[in-house]
């Protein structure tokens, strides 16, 4: 009886894992094969990788796309973490009735669909000449209620003794934040970093709206452009998809453990 139950349990988990990993495996393998081989159903690594790289570089400015995406995402992530953690800390440590009601008002912004703010933002940004700029890319998502809430939640577990002790030592409030709070909240920062970087790297609708020059295009836009046209070179296309996926997968593997811890803190 027990054995049969275990078979079901493992069977289901194995099935789910295969279903989850297979499309990614197929994508990685196809990047090393000729388009005809991909269509033919080849599922083993081939020797066509260099040829695919050459074709891809000829078709699109991949270096530019990778550089742009990396630049936008890193800058957005760094500034966003500072602004949102300052705010989350401020909302919790100095909380009073006014600040609490401001916070609940901010949470309403989580409900606003991007489609509703997209057009006025576009009009505003083109008025301020922010189209095709890094600032234009980062401004709308620099401060998000989700991140602020996450940091507020983690500030709740920040011991008040440390705060009082640091004040007696003569540290000012900003110094306490940077020297005491930031180092103790590493796992929250790691989780916030993973989420923000992935969202920035993967964002598609907003860049599609404001990045109109080919020189400021992001990697996802460039990959999407490859599918236009009648004949698809699957080997080359999957190589582009692979390149577009590597940075987020790397970040995920590096920060996986702290990510789970940070989410646990936020759900509690």
């Amino acid at each position, binding site marked *: 009886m027990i054995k049969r139950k275990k078979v079901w*349990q493992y069977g289901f988990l194995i099935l*789910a*894992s295969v279903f*989850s*990993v297979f*499309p*990614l495996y197929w994508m990685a393998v*196809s990047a090393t094969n000729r388009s005809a081989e991909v*269509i033919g*159903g080849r599922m083993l690594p081939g020797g066509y990788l260099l040829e695919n790289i050459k074709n891809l570089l000829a078709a699109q400015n991949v270096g530019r796309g990778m550089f742009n995406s990396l630049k936008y995402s890193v800058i957005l992530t760094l500034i966003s973490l500072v*602004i*949102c953690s*300052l*705010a989350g800390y*401020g*909302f919790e*440590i*100095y*909380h*009073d009735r006014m600040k609490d009601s*401001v916070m609940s008002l*901010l949470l309403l*912004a*989580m*409900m606003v*669909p*991007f*489609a*509703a*703010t*997209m*057009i*006025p*933002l576009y009009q505003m940004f083109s008025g301020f000449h922010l189209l095709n700029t890094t600032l234009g890319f980062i*401004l709308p*998502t*620099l*401060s998000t209620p989700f991140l602020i809430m996450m940091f507020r939640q983690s500030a709740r577990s920040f011991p008040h003794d440390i705060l009082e002790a640091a004040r007696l030592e003569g540290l000012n*409030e900003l110094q306490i934040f940077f020297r005491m709070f930031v180092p103790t909240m590493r796992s929250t920062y790691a989780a916030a970093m993973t989420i923000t970087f992935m969202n920035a*790297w993967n964002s*598609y*609708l907003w860049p599609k*709206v404001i990045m109109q020059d080919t020189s400021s295009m992001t990697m*996802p836009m460039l*990959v*999407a452009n490859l*599918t236009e046209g009648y004949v*698809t070179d699957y080997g080359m*296309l*999957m190589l582009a*998809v692979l390149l*577009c*996926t590597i940075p*987020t997968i790397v970040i995920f593997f590096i920060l*996986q453990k702290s990510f*789970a811890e940070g*989410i*646990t803190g936020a*759900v*509690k």
Partner: protein
Amino acid sequence: MNGKGKRMTLEKRHSLTGWGFLTPAVVLIVVMNFIPMLRALLLSFQAGVGNRMSFAGLYNYIRMFQDAVFLRSLANNFIYLLIQVPIMLVLALVLASLLNHKDLRLKGVFRTAIFLPCATSLVSYAIIFRSLFAVDGFINTVLVRLHILDTGYNFLGHAFSARIVIILALIWRWTGYNMVFYLSGLQNIEYSVYEAAKIDGATPFQSFWKITVPLLKPTILLTAIMSTNGTLQLFDESVNLTNGGPANATITMSHYIYNMSFKYVPNFGYAAAMSYLILFLVAALAFIQMKVGDKRD
């Protein structure tokens, strides 16, 4: 008196410092979210092309419900919502509770494998699924080789199968994400509760329904609201998996709003009105879910 006065200023200083900490974030959210939201509301009562707009009352809101493509996109969003979200959340819940078993081996491997799709960008996975299900794609090659089909079937060229591919892709991408939330929630439940239930003769199915589901209710509510919100705003999948086709059969509201604003002759007023319908739906559904979630207490 003197002491009290000094205390007040200290408190005031304290409060002001707090405002200093949160002002940048609050100003950004007001300027980037609330002001555009109000401007979109004003815009939604105007009609016209490009920058020549004039007040039109409720014209855009009435037009919306006579626009066959918009009604189609509204229905599509609801099809995705009503079919995909329940399947995904149940699947995530089952996987999380299977992974929560104390004596499970290879736990880390399973968890990583199932979460891995979330690290894939939306554009990437849409293109992977599109290639897998293309007429000359991998799925068709396998089906033909197994003699299930004679020739490749155009999955993305038929409305019904195209919608199923989108739903399948969404389940693939988001199940692991929701599972992580459930796994975190499960860590707050003492494992001894399950052991006690087992001694009392509860089947795994019973302890799932009677222990896991009720105790995870806040997390389930959170994921349900997040998924509803996300599904009503679907864009990348509609654009890159099916391009809304065949003949707008799979187009989503956000995709249609984008087309109306940036692809066709720009009609910002009409697009803004449609975006307000999404806003209204997101708010209304979140409200209903919170009410239903509270009721079962």
